[in-house]
C-alpha cells in the first residue's frame, strides 16, 4: 500500500514538473514572439528610412539578422523542451523512438559539448511507433549518456543509433574512443541497478558489451507493436 502511494506520488510529482516546464516554455515562446515582431518592425522601418549613412544601415541589418537567427535557435530549443515536458503527461502512449531521441539529444547536446564530447546521431528511417512509457524511455537514454559522458575523456564521440530488424527496434549507444577511458565496470554507484530496474519496468532489453570492448556499447531492445 505504502509502495503504491509512493509510486503515485512520484508519478504526480513528475507530471507536475512536466506541466510547469510546458507552461514555462509557452511563456518563453511568447517573449520570443515579441522580440521577433519588434526586430522585424525595426527591419521594416530601417528599410523605409532614407539614410546616407550606408555603413550604419548595413551594421543594423546585420544585428537584426543575428537577432532573427538567435530567435529561431531559441524557438527550436523551446519547442524541444515543450515536447519533452509533455512526454510526462501520460505513462503510456504511442511514440516513435527517433522523435524522442532527436528531442532529447537536442537538450543534452550542450551538456556533452561542455565536456567536449560529441554526440553523433545515426537513426534509421521508417522505424514504426511503439507503445510504452515515453518519459521513462527518455530517462533511460539520459542515464546512459550521463554514464558515458562521465566516463569518457574530452574529444570522445558517443554514437546514438536506431535500427529495426524482425520487428525488434534496437537503440545503440556506443563509444569507440578513447577506449582506455571506458570504466572497468559500470559506475560505482547504483546507476546500473536503476537502469536495469527501469528497463524491466518498461519490459525492454538492456545489454552492455564487456568492459574494454571495441566498440563499447549499451543496447536497448524494444519490441515494436
Amino acid at each position, binding site marked *: 500500500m505504502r509502495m503504491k502511494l509512493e509510486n503515485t506520488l512520484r508519478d504526480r510529482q513528475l507530471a507536475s514538473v512536466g506541466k510547469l516546464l510546458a507552461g514555462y516554455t509557452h511563456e518563453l515562446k511568447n517573449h*520570443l*514572439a515579441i522580440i521577433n515582431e519588434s526586430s522585424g518592425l525595426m527591419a*521594416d522601418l530601417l528599410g523605409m528610412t532614407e539614410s546616407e549613412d550606408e555603413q550604419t544601415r548595413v551594421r543594423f541589418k546585420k544585428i537584426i539578422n543575428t537577432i532573427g537567427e538567435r530567435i529561431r535557435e531559441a524557438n527550436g530549443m523551446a519547442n524541444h523542451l515543450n515536447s519533452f515536458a509533455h512526454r510526462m503527461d501520460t505513462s503510456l502512449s504511442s511514440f516513435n523512438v527517433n522523435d524522442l531521441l532527436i528531442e532529447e539529444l537536442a537538450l543534452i547536446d550542450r551538456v556533452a559539448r561542455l565536456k567536449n564530447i560529441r554526440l553523433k546521431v545515426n537513426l534509421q528511417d521508417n522505424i514504426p511507433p511503439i507503445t510504452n512509457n515515453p518519459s521513462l524511455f527518455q530517462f533511460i537514454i539520459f542515464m546512459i549518456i550521463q554514464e558515458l559522458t562521465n566516463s569518457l575523456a574530452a574529444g570522445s564521440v558517443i554514437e546514438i543509433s536506431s535500427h529495426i530488424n524482425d520487428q525488434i527496434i534496437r537503440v545503440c549507444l556506443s563509444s569507440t574512443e578513447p577506449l582506455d577511458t571506458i570504466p572497468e565496470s559500470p559506475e560505482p554507484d547504483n546507476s546500473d541497478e536503476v537502469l536495469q530496474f527501469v528497463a524491466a519496468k518498461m519490459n525492454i532489453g538492456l545489454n552492455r558489451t564487456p568492459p574494454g570492448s571495441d566498440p563499447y556499447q549499451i543496447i536497448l531492445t524494444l519490441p515494436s507493436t
Partner: protein
Amino acid sequence: MDEIKLLIVDDEVEFASALAERLELRNYHVDTANSGTEALKGLGSTYFPDIILLDLRMPDMSGFDVLVKIKEKHPAIEVIMLTGHGASSGGSSSLEKGAFAFIMKPVNICDLTKKIQEAYKNRTSAP
C-alpha cells in the same frame, strides 16, 4: 486591390501592436483586441474584419472558444489561429472548428501575409 481589414486578438499587447504595425506597413487595415471578450463584444460594432488573427492561449477565454463563437455569429469571417505549439496545442483541432489555418509563433511575416491573402481569397470566393 481592396484594403483587407484584419483584427489581431492577443493578450500580449506588445506582440499585437508590433505585428499590427508591420501589417499596416504592408497596406493592411489592422485593429487589435487584447482579449477574446473584447473581440467578441466589438465584432460588428467596433471591428469589421475580413480576417481575424487569433491567439490560441489567452487568459480570459481560450482562442478555441473564441473561434467557436465567431463562427457561430460571423461565419463569413476567416480566422487564422496563432499558436505556440501547433498540433500539440490544439492547432489542428481548431481547423476542425472552422479556422482557415494556424500559424506558429514566432511568426514569419512572409508566411503570414501569404496565408492572409489565401484566406481573403477564400472569403471573397465563398457563396
